[in-house]
């Protein structure tokens, strides 16, 4: 986040009037007249399009189709009493918090006409799942009413029943269990203790779908604090991660931006990052050196490392470099993803040995994002089965799906008298419950959060509840018998409430932990095991599976395998060869693969597809959790297999079976084929020569050697007058986290097309993140070994088994000599003086010539009508899902080409704002959807005609290069070479 974020953009900022501020408190006492249209009889039964819905609210644009000949009679329906803060056509921003038990983010919510349509980062990074959670708000699979025994009921009945039963249990001295996700809300914690007080024997158990129990316990033993430390990856010179995917899914969301702060070669210094892992993770793919091990070797290697640091000479060769670097480095961090307390104790000892506590690892500003206790959970399952639990209330968890012993849990549920779920969905757990008291979505709820010691964020509703749900906290209050509203409770807990609510984030009191330092270093040896070992992995898109019904996430390709709508067993090529497992392409290029039955710890999953994944350690396999939901909704149900069954890993027994699986991959070739696409250099070379690795081919001309841009027959167009919008993408800083992809989806109404269409290579992503693996075959090697060109190229297609990975976000490059523009017969795509390639959808007749002639292949064709089409039953075809559409961007009809517009609607908006205020456009104001979602600062957008913009310098940076520069298409998007910190 290189640009200063500002809170509360929009109207309130415009008129900094005290009255407006005062009014803000009351903003939700107004009924926004969405009920008119959202009642069950309203939208659910009508077939209104997005635009019709907007017309209900008045003021927005007209007909649903791109080219309507006749003039239909359109209605405008204004509010009866217009809420002051809502000005039709102007977005409001509210600071809030997203926390679903797995992901946490402090966000700004952009609303239009009272509908949240986009989330932006406020104080923490927003990952792809957080970005996408705005769509989950409008999920039509959400429960409409409280349920009793699987049937619609009403709150009064449900509350009466529950309260009387709870009282009965209390009077009988029964046990009540409250199974929740990690609770980071102090007010909720207080409420839960009130509840316990009221009903006596209440056990509050916190569980995490992917738990950090081992680490928490280890810290408890070492430091006396059961919390996760705060890592300062920006301060570490050497980072060693044993399997911990801290960029993607492990730990605090800000790890990613911290990490990239320490990796900016501009400072002449980069941290050195080693990753020791068996499954290729996002973090591993960004590492300078990646060492592949089997899962069972992790503990032994750590032990070996510890001993080496203490002077032992029996050093495992694989980690020799790590030891050298660690000893040399002033500061370092060693992290490990193990959920074994003993292993984590060892990690603590290593960090202590390296003197990292206090310098790079902060045990005071501890993180509270994971508090789950595996022992409590397994005790609970035992208790349930032995009939000791009389009432079970679940909140924010789905144990019937993601417990390792979900079967046992489900079996025991019959013995519980009162079972209540507060899930938003009729999910795997809720379906087993007597009562479902649907919670509200984060964006409809009040709340607070204490993600780490001293840090607080607030959550505020940005829309009236869409359905007849109720916040969990209000449910608790009503079961306690209190007449208080949670909102008041919350408001009274904080002083200067409005200001804090406005900012959404504040630093509060920091508890001073009194730390012990009880280090111990258990010793492990490296087992000499044969056979295949299993471990679970987590996808950046699906996480723990709670957002499984979100079509944006389902279609978000995994950054590493580039497959979507699926999970699968990942396996290295040589292991697959040994087992006779194959992946192959069918005639339209789509990937098919063998299927296997896999047994781990005597549990079996059948019909599991296998995807050959470079970077997966030989002799190991992995599978992502979050799939195989049976009650997720129309998008998530039945996609993939549930890997939570195998969450503890172990020896895997794999038998290949008949049949083939159809994958949906968006990238079918995985290597750069020796081409100069991602330009790379090493840190040492970069320090010597900042332009190293950035070679630009020169061509013979009548007056000497010249680069392609100097050889032109044409006079240049004037791009000096006015703005010239450029975007720089720093390949060193880009981690491939894909938050930008979802942000682009949300901002630009990009359609979701489904697995079948993705298989046909018809994904609609405007922004894609190309991922290339290195290959064993290089041009140099073929020259040396005299390998023929045919053989060389065919071998180049195969990635290495332990490849170097590069990520390259590619969107429309907005070429100033655009090949696509020239060839359009109807001039539907033209160039602006501001350096943008305009795509005029309504002029397009759909010859697709531009898409053919695009060297970057970023143009997307609407093969079908994706909105209002039953065949594509995703958000654009759902009356609720349509509410997330951005009214400033047209929904493309079938038969036209669409592509990245560099978020021209945002540019125009910011220009208008500047013109209204009579000032020039400020650097910090201009953003595209992707650059605003980028937490590492890899994407920088701005006006390169204005020297006060950062992009001005980046354009003249020696690392800057144009993709495919030999074509001289003069893109407005350019890249900065990737610098690796390796020798």
């Amino acid at each position, binding site marked *: 986040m290189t640009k200063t974020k500002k809170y509360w953009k929009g109207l309130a900022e415009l008129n900094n009037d005290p009255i407006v501020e005062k009014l803000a408190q009351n903003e939700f006492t107004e009924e926004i007249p969405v009920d008119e249209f959202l009642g069950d009889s309203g939208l659910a039964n009508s077939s209104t399009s997005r635009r019709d819905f907007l017309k209900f609210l008045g003021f927005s644009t007209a007909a649903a189709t791109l080219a309507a000949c006749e003039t239909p009679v359109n209605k405008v329906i204004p509010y009866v009493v217009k809420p002051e803060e809502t000005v039709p056509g102007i977005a409001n921003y509210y600071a809030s918090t997203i926390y679903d038990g797995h992901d946490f983010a402090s966000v700004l919510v952009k609303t239009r006409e009272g509908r949240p349509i986009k989330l932006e980062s406020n104080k923490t990074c927003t990952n792809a799942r957080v970005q996408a959670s705005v769509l989950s708000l409008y999920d039509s699979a959400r429960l409409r009413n409280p349920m009793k025994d699987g049937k619609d009921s009403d709150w009064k009945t449900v509350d009466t029943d529950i309260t009387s039963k709870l009282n009965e249990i209390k009077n009988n001295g029964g046990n009540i269990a409250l199974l929740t996700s990690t609770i980071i809300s102090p007010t909720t914690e207080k409420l839960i203790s009130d509840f316990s007080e009221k009903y006596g024997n209440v056990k509050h158990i916190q569980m995490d779908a992917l738990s950090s129990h081992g680490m928490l316990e280890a810290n408890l033993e070492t430091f006396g604090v059961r919390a996760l430390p705060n890592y300062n990856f920006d301060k570490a010179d050497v980072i060693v991660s044993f399997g911990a995917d801290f960029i993607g899914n492990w730990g605090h969301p800000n790890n990613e931006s911290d990490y990239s702060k320490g990796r900016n070669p501009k400072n002449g210094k980069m941290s050195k990052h080693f990753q020791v892992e068996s499954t290729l993770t996002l973090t591993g793919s960004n590492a300078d050196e990646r060492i592949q091990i089997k899962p069972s070797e992790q503990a032994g290697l750590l032990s070996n490392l510890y001993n080496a640091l203490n002077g032992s000479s029996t050093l495992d060769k694989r980690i020799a470099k790590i030891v050298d670097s660690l000893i040399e480095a002033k500061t370092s961090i060693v992290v490990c993803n193990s959920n074994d307390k003993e292993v984590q104790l060892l990690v603590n000892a290593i960090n202590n040995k390296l003197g990292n506590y206090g310098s790079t690892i902060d045990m005071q500003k501890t993180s509270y994002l994971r508090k789950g206790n595996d022992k409590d959970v397994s005790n609970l399952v035992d208790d349930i089965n032995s009939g000791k639990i009389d009432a079970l209330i679940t909140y924010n968890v789905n144990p019937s799906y993601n417990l390792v012993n979900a079967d046992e849990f489900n079996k025991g549920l019959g013995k519980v008298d009162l079972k209540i779920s507060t899930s938003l969905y009729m999910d795997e757990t809720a379906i087993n419950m007597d009562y479902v008291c649907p919670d509200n979505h984060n964006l409809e709820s009040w709340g607070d959060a204490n993600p780490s010691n001293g840090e607080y964020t607030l959550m505020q509703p940005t829309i009236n509840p869409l359905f007849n749900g109720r916040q969990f906290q209000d449910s608790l209050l009503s079961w306690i018998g209190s007449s208080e509203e949670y909102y008041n409770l919350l408001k009274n807990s904080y002083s200067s409430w409005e200001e804090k609510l406005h900012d959404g984030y504040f630093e509060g009191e920091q508890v001073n932990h009194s730390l012990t330092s009880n280090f111990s270093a258990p010793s492990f040896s490296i087992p000499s095991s044969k056979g295949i070992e299993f471990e679970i992995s987590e996808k950046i898109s699906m996480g723990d599976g709670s957002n499984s019904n979100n079509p944006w996430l389902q279609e978000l390709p995994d950054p590493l395998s580039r497959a979507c709508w699926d999970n699968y067993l990942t396996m290295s090529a040589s292991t697959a060869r040994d087992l006779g497992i194959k992946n192959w392409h069918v005639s339209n290029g789509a990937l098919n693969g063998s299927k296997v039955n896999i047994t781990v710890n005597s549990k079996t999953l059948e019909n599991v597809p296998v995807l050959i994944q470079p970077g997966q350690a030989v002799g190991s396999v992995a599978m992502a959790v979050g799939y195989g939901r049976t009650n997720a909704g129309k998008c998530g149900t039945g996609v993939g297999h549930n890997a939570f069954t195998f969450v503890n890993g172990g020896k895997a027994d794999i038998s290949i079976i008949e049949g083939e699986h159809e994958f949906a991959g968006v990238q079918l070739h995985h290597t750069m084929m020796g081409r100069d696409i991602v330009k790379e250099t090493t840190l040492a070379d970069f320090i010597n020569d900042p332009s190293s690795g950035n070679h630009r081919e020169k061509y013979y001309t009548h007056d000497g050697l010249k680069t392609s841009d100097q050889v032109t027959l*044409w*006079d240049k167009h004037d791009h000096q007058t006015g703005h010239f919008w450029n975007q720089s993408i720093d390949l060193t800083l880009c981690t491939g986290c894909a938050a930008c992809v979802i942000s682009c989806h949300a901002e630009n109404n990009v359609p979701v097309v489904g697995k079948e269409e993705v298989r046909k290579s018809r994904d609609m992503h405007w922004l894609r993140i190309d991922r290339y693996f290195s290959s064993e075959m290089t041009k140099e090697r073929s020259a040396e070994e005299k390998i023929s060109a045919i053989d060389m190229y065919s071998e180049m297609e195969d990635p290495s088994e332990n490849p170097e990975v590069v990520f390259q976000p590619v969107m429309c490059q907005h*070429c100033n000599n655009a090949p696509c*523009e*020239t060839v359009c017969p109807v*001039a539907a795509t*033209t160039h*602006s003086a501001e350096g943008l390639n305009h795509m005029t959808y309504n002029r397009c007749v759909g010859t697709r010539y531009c898409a053919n002639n695009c060297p970057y292949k970023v143009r997307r064709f609407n093969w079908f009508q994706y909105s209002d089409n039953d065949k594509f039953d995703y958000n654009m075809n759902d009356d609720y899902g349509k509410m997330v559409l951005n009214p400033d961007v047209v929904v493309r009809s079938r038969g036209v080409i669409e592509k990245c517009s560099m978020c021209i609607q945002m540019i125009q908006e910011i220009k208008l704002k500047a013109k209204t205020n009579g000032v020039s456009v400020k650097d910090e104001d201009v953003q595209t959807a992707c650059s605003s979602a980028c937490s590492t600062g890899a994407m920088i957008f701005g006006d390169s005609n204005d020297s006060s913009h950062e992009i001005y310098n980046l354009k003249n940076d020696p690392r800057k290069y144009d993709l495919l520069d030999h074509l001289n298409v*003069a893109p407005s998007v350019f890249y900065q070479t990737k610098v690796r910190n390796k020798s």
Partner: protein
Amino acid sequence: MSRKTVYGIFDDEEVLLNSVKEIKSNNIDIKEVYTPFPVHGLDKALGLKETRMAIAAFVYGCLGITFAGLMIYNIMIIDWPMNIGGKPNFTFYHNVPSFVPVMFECTVLFAAHLMSITYLIKCGLFPGAKSENPDPRTTDDKFLIEFELEGSTKKVKDLLSKTGASEINEK
């Protein structure tokens, strides 16, 4: 005063040609000759002027290229200049290579169509027009000379039979 029409019908184009030459040398006006196919030398024998169709086509072609040039100039340079692919579209001169194909096609289009239309008009050919050949066999295998005479027809008839007409009719 009575006008008489005399038809001389021939079986062979060479005979016809000789006959026409003979008649012409006798200074008798031939009204028209109908043949099933173009007979080479007949136009010269009849003393017809050379047709100016080719010149017309040339003029039309010039018209076409001018039209296309002006149209493109107006559209691309004057009316709504746009930056298309960074091409030098602000002067006609710089961008003219892109315009050559269309200008060429328009030249051919105009020349071919307008010439054909001129031909049809000049020959009085249009859908629904009545045919004027006096004998339907003239489109098959007969060659016919038509005379319109005042007074005696004998001289002509004699000449015809002498030069090999297979049939001589008078109306």
